[in-house]
């Protein structure tokens, strides 16, 4: 299966007054047509920088970003223009990401105007059909964002992202700001739209249960690196990286009396991305870390005959884990 979207060896560091932030540090990933790739990790792991790289709001320091085999990583403003419609984005905060002074119709029409699509009449028709698709009444096009609830605003953001019929939508925490009952509505909507239009999603979230529900494959990111890749079921049933195990153990299950095992972490606090640890970046928190983990960075290796990939010195190619609690 040829990839629709691919990142290889992507690096992005940010200069700040306090030093160099290693936001993304050598990431390889690919997304097939129609696939949902979930990306999980804690705050500061670089997942939002990865999203901004994917839509090419920012340019990588190193590595390639390819769309259908075309390298878009260093294209200039004009050269990237024809590619932009194919990758769109949905943001976490439906309050901040919509222009409060523009009507909803205008917000959804904006990408069509920018990319010079259709006549005004055709665009109006397109806006009405998009609003209908995302479950908003087309009559509401003349109203303004503040007249809508959080869930409805997220629908507006989704309609805007759909306007140019993209191949890939980067969803950056799209349901994190929503209430439980509305969250289910928006998750189902995203799922229906994908089934109908066949696009792909890069679905970024800190909420593992949401990612597990929507994604076909899941990538786990830690301090700028992917530490584990697996299809949704295997990640949940057989997490191999100690970090993934700690993340899953931390999710409070909505089951009363579910007694939780202690979280397998030596130190709770993640290190600063300003000074990521040498060797395996997780070694400072890992209960299984050995000497080698402080020196050598483990590579992301595939397990034999599986799509499952893990970056840990103590997981062998047959998926056998040789993790032992260190003293």
């Amino acid at each position: 299966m040829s990839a629709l979207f691919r990142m290889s060896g992507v690096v992005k560091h940010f200069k700040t007054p306090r030093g160099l932030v290693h936001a993304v540090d050598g990431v390889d990933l690919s997304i097939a047509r129609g696939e949902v790739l979930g990306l999980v990790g804690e705050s500061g792991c670089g997942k939002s920088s990865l999203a901004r790289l994917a839509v090419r709001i920012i340019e990588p320091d190193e590595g390639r970003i390819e769309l259908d085999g075309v390298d878009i990583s260093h294209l200039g403003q004009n050269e990237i223009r024809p590619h932009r419609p194919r990758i769109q984005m949905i943001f976490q905060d439906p309050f901040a990401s919509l222009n409060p002074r523009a009507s909803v119709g205008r917000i959804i029409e904006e990408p069509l105007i920018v990319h010079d699509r259709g006549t005004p009449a055709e665009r109006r028709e397109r806006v009405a059909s998009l609003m209908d698709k995302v479950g908003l009444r087309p009559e509401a096009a003349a109203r303004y964002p503040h007249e809508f609830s959080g869930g409805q605003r997220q629908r507006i953001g989704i309609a805007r992202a759909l306007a140019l019929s993209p191949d890939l939508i980067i969803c950056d925490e799209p349901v994190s700001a929503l209430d439980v009952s509305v969250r289910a509505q928006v998750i189902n909507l995203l799922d229906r739209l994908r089934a109908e239009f066949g696009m792909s999603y890069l679905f970024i979230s800190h909420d593992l249960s949401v990612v597990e529900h929507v994604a076909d494959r899941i990538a786990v990111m830690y301090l700028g690196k992917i530490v584990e890749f697996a299809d949704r079921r295997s990640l949940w049933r057989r997490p191999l990286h100690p970090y993934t195990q700690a993340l899953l153990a931390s999710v409070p299950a909505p089951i009363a009396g579910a007694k939780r095992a202690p979280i397998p972490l030596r130190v709770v606090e993640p290190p600063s991305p300003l000074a990521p640890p040498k060797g395996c970046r997780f070694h400072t928190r890992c209960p299984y870390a050995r000497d080698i983990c402080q020196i050598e960075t483990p590579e992301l290796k595939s397990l034999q005959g599986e799509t499952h990939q893990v970056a840990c010195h103590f997981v062998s190619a047959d998926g056998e884990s040789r993790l032992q609690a260190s003293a």
Partner: protein
Amino acid sequence: MALLDVRNLRTVFMTRQGVLPAVDGVSFRIEAGETVALVGESGCGKSVTAASILRLLPDPPGRTVGGEVMFEGVDLLALGEREMRQVRGARIGMIFQEPMTSLNPLLTIGDQITEAILEHEPVTKAAALKRAGDLIDLVRIPDASRVLREYPHRLSGGMRQRAVIAMALSCNPALLIADEPTTALDVTTQAQILELLDDLKQRLGMAILLITHDLGVVAQAAQRVVIMYAGRVVEEAGVTELFEGPLHPYTRGLLGSIPRPDREVDEHGRPPPLPEIAGLVPSLAALPPGCRFAPRCHLATPSCDLQDPPAITLPSGRRLACINADQMGSLT
């Protein structure tokens, strides 16, 4: 006697749209040493309930217009502001979602905790500082002597929340009110803070009123659960009873809409759509005439539009506000 007994609490907001009933006849109790979760979606009145108990709502626009808040046998709503200050931060501790709302960025952690102690207890500055160090140890912040000299911005989100918990515990409260205490934290940090709160509760014997929208947190941390919807209590039950057999259609809908890893999958390996609660939470300015959940309820009957059912106590001890439920709480 319950430690906290909230009776028919009513708090309104004066707005341009009129007087909005944010908390409309809410009653519940907390026994000493018990953790009760107050659960609901944004705008349901859970945080306003907490702020009303603590009398921290800015007036205007908010005003508590009815009910009683009996705490250790005294109605907090009848106290003067000076007496209330002796309760707040002493007998009742508070922590909020964003630790920086409780911390002064210009004072060190040590100064803030000692100030909280000196405010309520006649001890020397040195004794207060010593106690602050003990509290920092108690909330498992490593390197207490260094952290006491730090300013809040130098600490991570998780460490700040621990410092706020230390402050809230400074005068041995009988009740801790925690409003979304882990919502802003990463999942690994959240797990540690919940574990810490549970451990502190056991050791200090305090009760906790936990306000949250996260049903996973509820299942893990609470013994009893009060579910709110549009300013009203719709259901109350022990945590096991609630998760194993939710009665109110709203509670059932909420629990049903959570993604769970054990769902069946289709031939493409994908789980079926999540069960949804249709529609939106009603605006307080335009509440439905009868049951506030009726417009979204798939079990609603015409009589649901005629009266807003109060939460009544069932023989099992659970409470439920649904006119279509029988004595056992089964929906007809």
